[in-house]
């Protein structure tokens, strides 16, 4: 049964529209009408129909978020109220810390400190037990809250490693010699054949660096000046990196999280880091919770 037309050989049957088509059309239209009645749907000039359910996605999510926080409150409030040692002694709470901490750290801190918190060039390792600003929970919490050299926090920690070479405080030769000396602090083999330079550097160091890094180069947690005698480096321990630090200075910036993370979240991060550090030390990092 064709319509009687032909286009370059193509004909059309005049088959009636199958019942199923009308059926599904009606079903979807009824569904839609129902949805329009219940939900915000049709514009009316300067307003719109609100729907019988009065649904508002903004209110819904606000309620959801609030309810979720309340649900977490059971353990989160305990963490907030207890002191660090108590929480760490409570395996149930620490399980929450590990679960939440992993995500909090991954979304906020991993970009700089690495997904496993072992740091990266320019960003310190947070699980090696070696702390720039002190390893007490309160010191760590403070670093996270106010940051280091943060341009937004008024109470930020300030860390200034001057540009001794670039700013002309030391001559190029002195910078080189000091770098040799600093390198030799953690790598005694380095002094071999460079005794003169290292000795010279020792003098320069005593005159310029001890104020922050201390007479033995052990650093100062007050000033955030790193220990130069161990093998934990922020910017790398090769001679070029050390030279670059003395030449150009360093002002590593750690953002302040006081406006982005709640106190509870910051506390969880501190606990998470201490826990990870310990787990690592215990050689159990591999099996640490994901």
């Amino acid at each position, binding site marked *: 049964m064709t319509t009687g037309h032909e286009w370059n050989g193509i004909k059309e049957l005049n088959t009636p529209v199958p019942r199923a088509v009308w059926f599904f059309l009606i079903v979807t239209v009824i569904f839609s009408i129902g949805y329009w009645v219940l939900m915000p749907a049709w514009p009316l000039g300067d307003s719109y129909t609100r729907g019988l359910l009065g649904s508002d996605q903004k209110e819904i999510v606000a309620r959801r*978020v609030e309810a979720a926080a309340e649900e977490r409150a059971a353990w989160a409030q305990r963490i907030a109220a207890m002191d660090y040692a108590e929480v760490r002694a409570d395996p149930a709470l620490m399980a929450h810390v590990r679960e939440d901490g992993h995500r909090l750290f991954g979304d*906020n801190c991993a970009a700089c400190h690495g997904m496993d918190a072992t740091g990266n060039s*320019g960003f310190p390792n947070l699980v090696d037990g070696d702390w720039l600003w002190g390893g007490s929970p309160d010191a760590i919490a403070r670093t996270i809250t106010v940051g280091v050299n943060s341009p937004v926090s008024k109470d930020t920690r300030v860390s200034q490693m001057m540009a001794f070479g670039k700013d002309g405080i030391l001559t190029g030769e002195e910078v080189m010699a000091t770098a040799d000396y600093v390198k030799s602090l953690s790598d005694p083999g380095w002094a071999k054949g460079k005794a003169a330079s290292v000795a010279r550097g020792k003098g320069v160091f005593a005159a310029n660096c001890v104020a922050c890094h201390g007479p033995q180069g052990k650093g100062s947690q007050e000033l955030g000046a790193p220990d130069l005698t161990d093998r934990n480096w922020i910017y790398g321990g090769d001679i070029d990196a050390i030279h670059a630090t003395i030449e150009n200075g360093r002002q590593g*910036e750690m953002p302040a999280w006081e406006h982005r993370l*709640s106190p*509870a*979240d910051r506390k969880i991060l501190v606990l998470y880091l201490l826990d990870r550090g310990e787990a690592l030390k215990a050689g159990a990092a591999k099996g640490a919770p994901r």
Partner: protein
Amino acid sequence: MFGTHYRIERKSVILAVAIMIVASIGGLIEIAPLFTIDDTVETDPDMRVYTPLELAGRNIYIREGCYACHSQMIRTLQDEVERYGPYSLAVESKYDHPMLWGSKRTGPDLARIGGKYSDQWHTAHLTNPRDVVPQSIMPRYGWLGRAQLHTAHLGDDLRAMRAVGVPYTDAMIANAAADAVAQASPDDDTAGLVERYGEETQVRTFDGDRRTVSEMDALVAYLQILGKLSKAAEQPAKAVAAAATAPAAAEGGQARP
């Protein structure tokens, strides 16, 4: 019904007109009211405009196709609010010609990235993401640090933005190029810039190099302002701003990014 059609399909012009009418209805009803219904866009009298440097950065963001991987639209969903911060409001992009809400998150949402990381980090990350995030699949943008920013014609850009409705003043347009340079040169005189764009204008050596104003400066300045043009989304009453792990902790921080 089929009979009527039998006649319409004999007349090409009528068919064409019918198609245009039938096809226009949906768009008219959905788009036109967005200009007339008041609560479509929240009001924020304190909303500020992009500085010339930030606008230049935004244009680089567009040019490099960052929107192909990054959204700038936090949806009204619990997980998004808890991960990225307060959901995005319409007012926050009211000066965005065009909007950059995006449609794909190969990388994370950037609507609230401003202030989250340091300038240093952004510069290192854009130069080679794998230097700072070894697992990253984001492309390298090393040339941004090497390319000098073209500031000479920024006044034209501000003027075009004003033509489409952004309240740039004559003084802003006249000083566009100078303001762009000033924002990346904290040692220079920045009083004019701050007067025109407000106390909170971020004046820094974004790429760490004081001598030149590079495209990296502009892009980082733009990234650092994302989510900060308007504070409307942080108003606690508005919704979720105060959410935190524990409700008791709410006063201290805004959101859970």
